Protein backbone atom coordinates (compact mmCIF):
# COMPACT_ATOMS: atom_id res chain seq x y z
CA UNK A 1 0.00 0.00 0.00
CA UNK A 2 2.62 2.43 1.12
CA UNK A 3 5.78 0.85 -0.23
CA UNK A 4 6.99 3.87 -2.16
CA UNK A 5 7.00 6.15 0.90
CA UNK A 6 9.76 6.02 3.53
CA UNK A 7 8.31 4.08 6.46
CA UNK A 8 8.88 5.74 9.82
CA UNK A 9 6.74 3.66 12.16
CA UNK A 10 5.87 0.03 11.77
CA UNK A 11 3.47 -1.78 14.09
CA UNK A 12 3.49 -5.51 13.41
CA UNK A 13 0.91 -7.98 14.73
CA UNK A 14 0.63 -6.17 18.04
CA UNK A 15 -1.25 -7.92 20.81
CA UNK A 16 -1.86 -6.55 24.31
CA UNK A 17 -3.34 -8.52 27.14
CA UNK A 18 -3.70 -6.81 30.54
CA UNK A 19 -2.34 -8.53 33.61
CA UNK A 20 -5.99 -9.06 34.57
CA UNK A 21 -6.27 -11.40 31.58
CA UNK A 22 -8.44 -9.10 29.44
CA UNK A 23 -7.42 -8.99 25.82
CA UNK A 24 -7.46 -5.31 24.80
CA UNK A 25 -5.74 -5.57 21.44
CA UNK A 26 -5.95 -8.81 19.52
CA UNK A 27 -3.93 -8.20 16.39
CA UNK A 28 -3.08 -4.76 15.05
CA UNK A 29 -0.67 -4.05 12.22
CA UNK A 30 -0.21 -0.59 10.78
CA UNK A 31 2.46 1.65 9.39
CA UNK A 32 3.10 5.37 9.16
CA UNK A 33 5.21 6.94 6.42
CA UNK A 34 7.61 9.80 7.11
CA UNK A 35 5.67 13.06 6.98
CA UNK A 36 2.35 11.29 6.82
CA UNK A 37 -0.79 12.02 8.86
CA UNK A 38 -2.37 8.75 9.92
CA UNK A 39 -5.44 8.29 12.12
CA UNK A 40 -6.75 5.34 14.03
CA UNK A 41 -10.53 5.46 14.52
CA UNK A 42 -12.65 3.12 16.49
CA UNK A 43 -15.62 3.03 18.83
CA UNK A 44 -15.18 4.34 22.38
CA UNK A 45 -13.50 1.85 24.67
CA UNK A 46 -11.87 -0.09 21.85
CA UNK A 47 -8.44 0.10 23.40
CA UNK A 48 -7.22 3.07 21.38
CA UNK A 49 -5.37 4.65 24.27
CA UNK A 50 -3.82 1.29 25.16
CA UNK A 51 -2.71 0.94 21.55
CA UNK A 52 -1.11 4.38 21.55
CA UNK A 53 0.60 3.80 24.91
CA UNK A 54 1.98 0.52 23.59
CA UNK A 55 3.19 2.16 20.40
CA UNK A 56 5.07 4.86 22.30
CA UNK A 57 6.70 2.36 24.65
CA UNK A 58 4.80 3.23 27.86
CA UNK A 59 3.31 -0.29 27.82
CA UNK A 60 4.98 -3.51 26.72
CA UNK A 61 3.16 -5.47 24.01
CA UNK A 62 2.17 -9.04 24.88
CA UNK A 63 3.35 -10.04 21.43
CA UNK A 64 4.21 -8.34 18.17
CA UNK A 65 6.50 -5.37 17.76
CA UNK A 66 6.74 -1.63 17.24
CA UNK A 67 9.61 -0.35 15.12
CA UNK A 68 10.52 3.32 14.76
CA UNK A 69 12.95 4.21 12.02
CA UNK A 70 14.20 0.61 11.98
CA UNK A 71 14.73 0.46 15.77
CA UNK A 72 12.61 -1.73 18.02
CA UNK A 73 10.66 0.35 20.56
CA UNK A 74 11.01 -1.00 24.11
CA UNK A 75 10.86 2.32 26.01
CA UNK A 76 9.66 5.80 24.97
CA UNK A 77 12.09 6.80 22.19
CA UNK A 78 13.45 10.35 22.01
CA UNK A 79 12.06 10.77 18.48
CA UNK A 80 8.50 10.45 19.75
CA UNK A 81 6.18 12.76 21.71
CA UNK A 82 2.66 12.24 22.95
CA UNK A 83 -0.23 14.65 23.53
CA UNK A 84 -2.81 13.34 25.98
CA UNK A 85 -6.54 13.89 25.79
CA UNK A 86 -6.87 15.62 29.13
CA UNK A 87 -4.60 18.67 29.22
CA UNK A 88 -5.66 19.38 32.82
CA UNK A 89 -4.14 16.06 33.84
CA UNK A 90 -1.01 16.14 31.70
CA UNK A 91 0.15 19.76 32.22
CA UNK A 92 1.96 20.68 35.43
CA UNK A 93 -0.10 23.26 37.35
CA UNK A 94 2.90 24.37 39.45
CA UNK A 95 4.82 25.47 36.35
CA UNK A 96 4.09 28.46 34.12
CA UNK A 97 3.22 27.96 30.47
CA UNK A 98 6.89 28.51 29.58
CA UNK A 99 7.96 26.16 32.39
CA UNK A 100 5.69 23.43 31.05
CA UNK A 101 7.05 23.79 27.54
CA UNK A 102 10.65 23.81 28.85
CA UNK A 103 10.04 20.68 30.93
CA UNK A 104 11.11 18.09 28.32
CA UNK A 105 14.14 20.19 27.33
CA UNK A 106 15.92 20.30 30.69
CA UNK A 107 18.45 17.67 29.79
CA UNK A 108 18.27 18.08 26.05
CA UNK A 109 19.33 21.71 25.60
CA UNK A 110 21.50 24.36 27.24
CA UNK A 111 19.51 27.19 28.92
CA UNK A 112 19.91 29.73 26.11
CA UNK A 113 18.89 27.21 23.46
CA UNK A 114 16.05 26.09 25.69
CA UNK A 115 14.60 29.60 26.00
CA UNK A 116 14.71 29.97 22.23
CA UNK A 117 13.02 26.60 21.68
CA UNK A 118 10.29 27.50 24.17
CA UNK A 119 9.66 30.86 22.48
CA UNK A 120 9.52 29.23 19.06
CA UNK A 121 7.12 26.50 20.21
CA UNK A 122 4.82 29.00 21.93
CA UNK A 123 4.86 31.25 18.87
CA UNK A 124 4.00 28.24 16.67
CA UNK A 125 0.81 27.59 18.66
CA UNK A 126 -0.05 31.30 19.00
CA UNK A 127 0.66 31.61 22.73
CA UNK A 128 3.73 33.85 22.63
CA UNK A 129 2.03 36.36 24.95
CA UNK A 130 1.07 33.79 27.57
CA UNK A 131 4.48 32.42 28.57
CA UNK A 132 4.33 33.77 32.12
CA UNK A 133 0.78 32.62 32.85
CA UNK A 134 -0.14 29.37 34.55
CA UNK A 135 -2.00 26.75 32.50
CA UNK A 136 -5.04 26.85 34.78
CA UNK A 137 -5.45 30.56 34.02
CA UNK A 138 -6.12 29.71 30.37
CA UNK A 139 -9.11 28.31 28.51
CA UNK A 140 -9.27 24.61 27.66
CA UNK A 141 -8.29 25.14 24.05
CA UNK A 142 -5.30 27.26 25.06
CA UNK A 143 -4.21 24.65 27.59
CA UNK A 144 -4.21 22.01 24.89
CA UNK A 145 -2.11 24.37 22.77
CA UNK A 146 0.38 24.46 25.65
CA UNK A 147 0.46 20.65 25.66
CA UNK A 148 1.00 20.66 21.89
CA UNK A 149 3.74 23.31 22.20
CA UNK A 150 5.46 21.17 24.83
CA UNK A 151 5.42 18.18 22.49
CA UNK A 152 6.60 20.28 19.52
CA UNK A 153 9.45 21.85 21.54
CA UNK A 154 10.74 18.32 22.15
CA UNK A 155 11.32 18.26 18.36
CA UNK A 156 10.00 14.75 17.74
CA UNK A 157 10.01 12.93 14.40
CA UNK A 158 6.53 11.69 15.13
CA UNK A 159 3.81 13.12 17.32
CA UNK A 160 1.21 10.78 18.80
CA UNK A 161 -2.11 12.41 19.63
CA UNK A 162 -4.55 10.64 21.95
CA UNK A 163 -8.00 12.17 21.30
CA UNK A 164 -6.40 15.59 21.81
CA UNK A 165 -9.50 17.58 20.83
CA UNK A 166 -12.13 15.58 22.71
CA UNK A 167 -12.28 17.88 25.75
CA UNK A 168 -12.92 21.20 23.97
CA UNK A 169 -15.93 22.81 22.30
CA UNK A 170 -16.61 22.45 18.56
CA UNK A 171 -15.16 25.81 17.45
CA UNK A 172 -11.99 25.39 19.48
CA UNK A 173 -11.77 21.90 18.13
CA UNK A 174 -11.75 23.12 14.52
CA UNK A 175 -9.06 25.68 15.45
CA UNK A 176 -6.88 23.01 17.03
CA UNK A 177 -7.34 20.69 14.05
CA UNK A 178 -6.13 23.38 11.70
CA UNK A 179 -3.28 24.23 14.05
CA UNK A 180 -2.19 20.59 13.93
CA UNK A 181 -2.27 20.59 10.13
CA UNK A 182 -0.27 23.82 10.08
CA UNK A 183 2.38 22.45 12.46
CA UNK A 184 2.69 19.37 10.33
CA UNK A 185 3.11 21.49 7.18
CA UNK A 186 5.53 23.98 8.80
CA UNK A 187 7.64 21.58 10.86
CA UNK A 188 7.27 18.38 8.87
CA UNK A 189 6.32 16.33 11.91
CA UNK A 190 4.72 12.96 11.22
CA UNK A 191 1.38 12.60 13.00
CA UNK A 192 -0.42 9.59 14.40
CA UNK A 193 -3.85 10.50 15.78
CA UNK A 194 -6.24 8.34 17.74
CA UNK A 195 -9.87 9.46 17.75
CA UNK A 196 -13.43 8.23 17.89
CA UNK A 197 -14.49 11.12 15.66
CA UNK A 198 -14.70 9.85 12.09
CA UNK A 199 -15.11 13.30 10.52
CA UNK A 200 -12.03 14.52 12.31
CA UNK A 201 -9.99 11.53 11.15
CA UNK A 202 -11.09 11.99 7.52
CA UNK A 203 -10.51 15.74 7.63
CA UNK A 204 -6.96 15.52 8.97
CA UNK A 205 -5.52 12.30 7.57
CA UNK A 206 -3.76 10.85 4.60
CA UNK A 207 -4.78 7.38 5.74
CA UNK A 208 -7.20 6.05 8.34
CA UNK A 209 -7.06 2.69 10.11
CA UNK A 210 -10.45 1.54 11.33
CA UNK A 211 -10.45 -0.53 14.52
CA UNK A 212 -13.06 -3.03 15.66
CA UNK A 213 -14.62 -3.04 19.13
CA UNK A 214 -12.32 -4.81 21.63
CA UNK A 215 -10.35 -6.94 21.44
CA UNK A 216 -9.14 -4.65 18.67
CA UNK A 217 -8.22 -5.68 15.18
CA UNK A 218 -7.80 -3.45 12.12
CA UNK A 219 -11.05 -3.69 10.16
CA UNK A 220 -9.82 -1.71 7.19
CA UNK A 221 -7.26 0.77 6.01
CA UNK A 222 -8.71 3.70 4.07
CA UNK A 223 -6.68 6.07 1.90
CA UNK A 224 -8.03 9.63 2.12
CA UNK A 225 -7.31 11.18 -1.23
CA UNK A 226 -8.80 14.58 -0.42
CA UNK A 227 -6.99 17.60 -1.87
CA UNK A 228 -4.66 19.70 0.31
CA UNK A 229 -4.52 22.11 1.96
CA UNK A 230 -7.63 21.08 3.80
CA UNK A 231 -10.11 23.77 4.83
CA UNK A 232 -12.88 23.22 7.31
CA UNK A 233 -15.85 24.35 5.22
CA UNK A 234 -14.64 23.42 1.75
CA UNK A 235 -13.22 20.01 2.68
CA UNK A 236 -16.12 18.99 4.84
CA UNK A 237 -18.67 19.82 2.15
CA UNK A 238 -16.70 17.94 -0.54
CA UNK A 239 -18.72 14.99 -1.85
CA UNK A 240 -15.68 12.71 -1.47
CA UNK A 241 -15.39 13.70 2.21
CA UNK A 242 -19.00 12.69 2.79
CA UNK A 243 -18.48 9.46 0.87
CA UNK A 244 -15.43 8.53 2.94
CA UNK A 245 -17.03 9.31 6.28
CA UNK A 246 -20.13 7.30 5.40
CA UNK A 247 -17.97 4.41 4.28
CA UNK A 248 -16.05 4.42 7.58
CA UNK A 249 -19.25 4.82 9.61
CA UNK A 250 -20.55 1.76 7.87
CA UNK A 251 -17.37 -0.23 8.62
CA UNK A 252 -17.42 0.58 12.31
CA UNK A 253 -20.95 -0.78 12.51
CA UNK A 254 -19.88 -4.02 10.83
CA UNK A 255 -18.98 -7.30 12.54
CA UNK A 256 -15.27 -8.09 12.82
CA UNK A 257 -13.65 -9.79 9.82
CA UNK A 258 -13.07 -13.53 10.06
CA UNK A 259 -9.54 -14.70 9.41
Amino acid at each position, binding site marked *: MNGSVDRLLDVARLQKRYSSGTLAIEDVSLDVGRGEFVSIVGPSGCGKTTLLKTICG*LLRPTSGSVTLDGKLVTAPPPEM*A*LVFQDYA*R*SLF*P*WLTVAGNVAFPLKRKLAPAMRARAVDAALAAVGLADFAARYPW*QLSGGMQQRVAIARAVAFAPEILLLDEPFASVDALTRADLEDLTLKLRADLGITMLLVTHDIDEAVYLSDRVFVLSPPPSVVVREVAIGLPKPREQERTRSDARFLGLRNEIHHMIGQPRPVN
Partner: protein
Amino acid sequence: MKRTGLGIATVVVLLLVWEAVARAKQSLYLPPVSTVAVTFVHEWFSPQFVAEAVPSLVRMFIGYLVAALFGTVIGVLIGAYPPLYRVVDPLLQFLRAIPPTAIIPVAILLIGIGDGMKILVIAFGALWPILVNSADGARAVIRERLDTARVFGIGPVATLLTVTFPSALPGVFAGLRTGLSIAFIMIVVSEMIGSTNGLGYYILQAQRTFAIPEMYGGIVLLAILGYGLNAGFVAVERRVLAWHYGQSARA
Protein backbone atom coordinates in the same frame (compact mmCIF):
# COMPACT_ATOMS: atom_id res chain seq x y z
CA MET B 1 -13.87 43.72 57.52
CA LYS B 2 -17.20 43.58 59.35
CA ARG B 3 -16.48 40.00 60.49
CA THR B 4 -13.05 41.02 61.79
CA GLY B 5 -14.73 43.80 63.78
CA LEU B 6 -17.21 41.35 65.30
CA GLY B 7 -14.38 38.95 66.10
CA ILE B 8 -12.45 41.61 67.99
CA ALA B 9 -15.63 42.73 69.77
CA THR B 10 -16.22 39.15 70.96
CA VAL B 11 -12.74 38.99 72.49
CA VAL B 12 -13.18 42.38 74.18
CA VAL B 13 -16.56 41.36 75.67
CA LEU B 14 -15.13 38.08 77.01
CA LEU B 15 -12.18 39.92 78.59
CA LEU B 16 -14.60 42.37 80.25
CA VAL B 17 -16.67 39.46 81.60
CA TRP B 18 -13.48 37.89 82.98
CA GLU B 19 -12.54 41.19 84.64
CA ALA B 20 -16.02 41.63 86.16
CA VAL B 21 -16.29 38.04 87.44
CA ALA B 22 -12.78 38.13 88.92
CA ARG B 23 -13.42 41.41 90.72
CA ALA B 24 -16.73 40.13 92.09
CA LYS B 25 -15.32 36.78 93.33
CA GLN B 26 -11.99 38.06 94.69
CA SER B 27 -10.53 34.57 94.25
CA LEU B 28 -6.79 33.88 94.44
CA TYR B 29 -7.16 31.46 91.57
CA LEU B 30 -8.86 33.88 89.21
CA PRO B 31 -7.02 37.22 89.16
CA PRO B 32 -8.60 40.05 87.10
CA VAL B 33 -7.46 40.17 83.50
CA SER B 34 -5.96 43.63 84.13
CA THR B 35 -3.65 42.12 86.77
CA VAL B 36 -2.69 39.35 84.35
CA ALA B 37 -1.97 41.96 81.68
CA VAL B 38 0.27 44.02 83.97
CA THR B 39 2.11 40.86 85.07
CA PHE B 40 2.41 39.76 81.45
CA VAL B 41 4.07 42.99 80.38
CA HIS B 42 6.36 42.95 83.40
CA GLU B 43 7.35 39.29 82.94
CA TRP B 44 7.73 39.05 79.19
CA PHE B 45 8.96 42.44 78.05
CA SER B 46 12.13 41.53 79.90
CA PRO B 47 15.18 39.23 79.64
CA GLN B 48 12.87 36.51 80.91
CA PHE B 49 11.63 36.06 77.35
CA VAL B 50 15.14 34.95 76.35
CA ALA B 51 15.44 32.76 79.45
CA GLU B 52 12.11 30.92 79.16
CA ALA B 53 10.47 31.40 75.76
CA VAL B 54 13.52 31.21 73.50
CA PRO B 55 14.66 27.77 74.75
CA SER B 56 11.14 26.44 74.12
CA LEU B 57 11.05 27.84 70.62
CA VAL B 58 14.54 26.60 69.76
CA ARG B 59 13.74 23.04 70.93
CA MET B 60 10.50 23.13 69.05
CA PHE B 61 12.06 24.31 65.82
CA ILE B 62 14.83 21.72 65.92
CA GLY B 63 12.36 18.92 66.64
CA TYR B 64 9.92 20.17 64.03
CA LEU B 65 12.64 20.60 61.41
CA VAL B 66 13.85 17.03 61.97
CA ALA B 67 10.27 15.77 61.66
CA ALA B 68 9.61 17.89 58.56
CA LEU B 69 12.76 16.68 56.84
CA PHE B 70 12.37 12.98 57.59
CA GLY B 71 8.58 13.01 57.28
CA THR B 72 8.59 14.67 53.86
CA VAL B 73 11.47 12.67 52.37
CA ILE B 74 10.41 9.26 53.68
CA GLY B 75 6.71 9.99 53.11
CA VAL B 76 7.14 11.02 49.47
CA LEU B 77 9.41 8.02 48.81
CA ILE B 78 6.91 5.62 50.35
CA GLY B 79 4.00 7.19 48.50
CA ALA B 80 5.87 7.14 45.19
CA TYR B 81 6.27 3.34 45.30
CA PRO B 82 2.88 1.68 45.80
CA PRO B 83 4.32 -1.78 46.65
CA LEU B 84 6.40 -0.19 49.42
CA TYR B 85 3.36 1.77 50.62
CA ARG B 86 1.28 -1.40 50.93
CA VAL B 87 4.00 -3.04 53.02
CA VAL B 88 4.59 -0.19 55.48
CA ASP B 89 1.10 1.33 55.68
CA PRO B 90 -0.18 -0.89 58.55
CA LEU B 91 2.96 -0.13 60.55
CA LEU B 92 2.58 3.62 59.93
CA GLN B 93 -1.07 3.58 60.96
CA PHE B 94 -0.10 1.75 64.16
CA LEU B 95 2.76 4.12 65.03
CA ARG B 96 0.77 7.26 64.33
CA ALA B 97 -2.00 5.98 66.64
CA ILE B 98 0.37 6.21 69.63
CA PRO B 99 -0.33 9.47 71.51
CA PRO B 100 3.11 11.10 71.37
CA THR B 101 2.95 12.03 75.06
CA ALA B 102 3.08 8.31 75.83
CA ILE B 103 6.63 8.02 74.56
CA ILE B 104 7.97 10.67 76.97
CA PRO B 105 8.70 8.01 79.66
CA VAL B 106 10.50 5.92 77.04
CA ALA B 107 12.53 8.90 75.88
CA ILE B 108 13.49 9.79 79.48
CA LEU B 109 14.53 6.19 80.08
CA LEU B 110 16.69 6.12 76.96
CA ILE B 111 18.31 9.56 76.89
CA GLY B 112 17.48 11.27 80.17
CA ILE B 113 15.60 14.52 80.73
CA GLY B 114 17.82 16.92 78.72
CA ASP B 115 17.13 18.87 75.56
CA GLY B 116 17.63 15.70 73.51
CA MET B 117 14.58 14.09 75.11
CA LYS B 118 12.39 17.11 74.36
CA ILE B 119 13.58 17.37 70.78
CA LEU B 120 13.02 13.65 70.33
CA VAL B 121 9.43 13.66 71.58
CA ILE B 122 8.60 16.78 69.56
CA ALA B 123 10.07 15.18 66.43
CA PHE B 124 8.28 11.90 67.14
CA GLY B 125 4.92 13.61 67.60
CA ALA B 126 5.20 15.78 64.50
CA LEU B 127 6.73 13.08 62.30
CA TRP B 128 3.70 10.82 61.72
CA PRO B 129 1.17 13.31 60.39
CA ILE B 130 3.85 14.78 58.09
CA LEU B 131 4.97 11.35 56.89
CA VAL B 132 1.49 9.92 56.35
CA ASN B 133 0.14 13.03 54.60
CA SER B 134 3.25 13.28 52.39
CA ALA B 135 2.80 9.63 51.39
CA ASP B 136 -0.87 10.25 50.57
CA GLY B 137 0.10 13.35 48.59
CA ALA B 138 2.68 11.42 46.57
CA ARG B 139 0.21 8.60 45.94
CA ALA B 140 -2.22 11.13 44.46
CA VAL B 141 0.18 12.01 41.61
CA ILE B 142 -1.73 11.89 38.35
CA ARG B 143 -0.83 8.97 36.06
CA GLU B 144 -0.69 11.17 32.92
CA ARG B 145 1.95 13.39 34.54
CA LEU B 146 4.22 10.42 35.23
CA ASP B 147 3.58 9.14 31.69
CA THR B 148 4.41 12.60 30.32
CA ALA B 149 7.77 12.52 32.11
CA ARG B 150 8.53 9.02 30.78
CA VAL B 151 7.60 9.95 27.21
CA PHE B 152 10.00 12.89 27.41
CA GLY B 153 12.77 10.63 28.65
CA ILE B 154 12.95 12.07 32.18
CA GLY B 155 14.67 9.55 34.48
CA PRO B 156 13.12 8.12 37.66
CA VAL B 157 15.04 10.38 40.08
CA ALA B 158 14.29 13.55 38.12
CA THR B 159 10.64 12.47 37.84
CA LEU B 160 10.47 11.96 41.59
CA LEU B 161 11.88 15.46 42.19
CA THR B 162 10.11 17.40 39.44
CA VAL B 163 6.75 15.60 39.13
CA THR B 164 5.95 13.47 42.19
CA PHE B 165 7.30 15.90 44.79
CA PRO B 166 5.40 18.99 43.55
CA SER B 167 2.27 16.83 43.17
CA ALA B 168 2.66 15.78 46.81
CA LEU B 169 3.06 19.35 48.13
CA PRO B 170 -0.60 19.92 49.08
CA GLY B 171 -0.41 16.73 51.18
CA VAL B 172 3.00 17.66 52.56
CA PHE B 173 1.64 21.01 53.76
CA ALA B 174 -1.47 19.42 55.30
CA GLY B 175 0.93 17.22 57.29
CA LEU B 176 3.27 20.08 58.18
CA ARG B 177 0.35 22.06 59.56
CA THR B 178 -0.88 19.23 61.80
CA GLY B 179 2.73 18.50 62.75
CA LEU B 180 3.28 22.10 63.82
CA SER B 181 0.36 22.08 66.26
CA ILE B 182 1.49 18.73 67.68
CA ALA B 183 5.06 20.03 68.07
CA PHE B 184 3.66 23.00 69.98
CA ILE B 185 1.74 20.72 72.34
CA MET B 186 4.74 18.44 72.83
CA ILE B 187 7.11 21.23 73.79
CA VAL B 188 4.85 22.33 76.65
CA VAL B 189 4.20 18.80 77.89
CA SER B 190 7.86 17.74 77.70
CA GLU B 191 8.95 20.85 79.60
CA MET B 192 6.41 20.19 82.33
CA ILE B 193 7.84 16.73 82.90
CA GLY B 194 11.55 17.31 83.08
CA SER B 195 13.00 20.75 82.71
CA THR B 196 14.62 23.71 84.42
CA ASN B 197 13.50 26.29 81.87
CA GLY B 198 11.05 26.77 79.03
CA LEU B 199 7.42 27.85 78.94
CA GLY B 200 5.99 24.52 80.08
CA TYR B 201 8.31 24.61 83.11
CA TYR B 202 7.46 28.27 83.78
CA ILE B 203 3.69 27.72 83.81
CA LEU B 204 3.91 24.67 86.07
CA GLN B 205 6.35 26.44 88.40
CA ALA B 206 4.08 29.49 88.60
CA GLN B 207 1.13 27.28 89.54
CA ARG B 208 3.13 25.44 92.22
CA THR B 209 4.31 28.69 93.81
CA PHE B 210 0.83 30.27 93.66
CA ALA B 211 2.08 32.91 91.21
CA ILE B 212 -1.34 32.74 89.56
CA PRO B 213 -1.20 35.90 87.37
CA GLU B 214 2.19 34.63 86.08
CA MET B 215 0.61 31.25 85.28
CA TYR B 216 -2.14 32.89 83.22
CA GLY B 217 0.41 35.20 81.64
CA GLY B 218 2.43 32.20 80.48
CA ILE B 219 -0.66 30.66 78.90
CA VAL B 220 -1.43 33.95 77.13
CA LEU B 221 2.12 34.03 75.79
CA LEU B 222 1.66 30.48 74.45
CA ALA B 223 -1.55 31.53 72.76
CA ILE B 224 0.18 34.49 71.12
CA LEU B 225 3.14 32.38 69.99
CA GLY B 226 0.84 29.64 68.66
CA TYR B 227 -1.25 32.18 66.78
CA GLY B 228 1.87 33.77 65.30
CA LEU B 229 3.36 30.44 64.26
CA ASN B 230 0.16 29.42 62.53
CA ALA B 231 -0.17 32.78 60.77
CA GLY B 232 3.44 32.50 59.57
CA PHE B 233 2.80 28.96 58.38
CA VAL B 234 -0.32 29.95 56.47
CA ALA B 235 1.57 32.81 54.79
CA VAL B 236 4.30 30.41 53.59
CA GLU B 237 1.72 27.84 52.48
CA ARG B 238 -0.26 30.44 50.50
CA ARG B 239 2.93 31.36 48.68
CA VAL B 240 4.25 27.88 47.96
CA LEU B 241 0.83 26.44 47.05
CA ALA B 242 -0.45 29.48 45.12
CA TRP B 243 -0.75 27.28 42.04
CA HIS B 244 -2.78 24.72 43.96
CA TYR B 245 -5.27 27.25 45.32
CA GLY B 246 -5.45 29.05 41.98
CA GLN B 247 -6.20 25.81 40.20
CA SER B 248 -8.78 24.69 42.75
CA ALA B 249 -10.56 28.03 42.56
CA ARG B 250 -11.00 27.59 38.80
CA ALA B 251 -12.13 23.99 38.87
